[in-house]
């Protein structure tokens, strides 16, 4: 039961992240997989990646440092990072 709840939360978080990426990068939702790289696969430029980080900060009400932000180059890494930071 506990496992399932955790999984549901993760899915909800992924949905939020995907919505932000779709809006920011104007890509179809099906292209946003966990493996997708923001720059190579989703066509983001450097300013897009900064805007994405800012959008994550706003949506999840947290601060992401420059060093941490630079490591988040795939959707999966961003989801894992946000999951870690938002768990109660």
């Amino acid at each position: 039961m506990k496992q399932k709840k955790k999984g549901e939360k993760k899915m909800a978080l992924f949905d939020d992240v995907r919505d932000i990426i779709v809006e920011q990068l104007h890509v179809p939702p099906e292209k946003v997989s966990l493996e997708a790289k923001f720059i190579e696969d989703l066509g983001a430029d450097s300013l897009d990646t900064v805007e994405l980080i800012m959008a994550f900060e706003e949506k999840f009400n947290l601060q992401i440092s420059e060093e941490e932000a630079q490591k988040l180059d795939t959707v999966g890494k961003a989801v894992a990072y946000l999951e870690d930071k938002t768990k109660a």
Partner: protein
Amino acid sequence: MVLESKVAFITGGASGIGAGIAKKFIQEGTRVIICDVDAETGTKTAQQIGGNIHFYKMDISDEGEVKKTVETVINEFSRIDILINNAGITKDRLLLRMTKQDWESVIGINLTGTFLVTKTIMRYMIKQRYGRIINIASVVGLIGNPGQANYAASKAGIIGFTKSCAKELAGRNITVNAIAPGFIETRMTENIPDEIKQNYLKLIPLRRFGLPEDVANLALFLSSDQASYITGQVVCLDGGLVM
């Protein structure tokens, strides 16, 4: 009306070039926010110009104050289309006599202040995919001037800043340009001794000093849709002093 329904944010708007630009923009139907550290003059200027103009007291070198003011303006007007970075000071002294404090106060306000205001406002321009940023530099930033090493450095810094911003923001439909005024008749230049003024005049091919309105005319053009293909430029407005 070239700028109807746009929102312009002008720093150092209480007097001089900033007030001249505010007046011109109001005539063009723009909603104008002027900021200045001098609340008394700022309030008076807003009253004198009249129309859709609003004064906010703000020190551009105070990060917290800048953030607070910009947030208030965004809540009120929901966007900022045009930013005129005009606020600046001088602390003239020959380099041999210039203190670290003279240096730091001029760099801190003119250059760091311009950075802080731009950084704070550009995030809204990026989101709205539209913006016009005009930085008021100076010909002194191009050719130097004895007694103004600090001021010249700050203005040369603004020129480099302008070009970098232009490159970073071009993809978001934001243009960034600098105006480099020469000798403009304002409070900043009124205390220059007559003899020096006359010497300057001899160097100006058009044989007159500029007026805030001259700068305002160029700012208006650079803020308009007609200037949408101009970015990263420094336009001298100096009667031909520098060419």
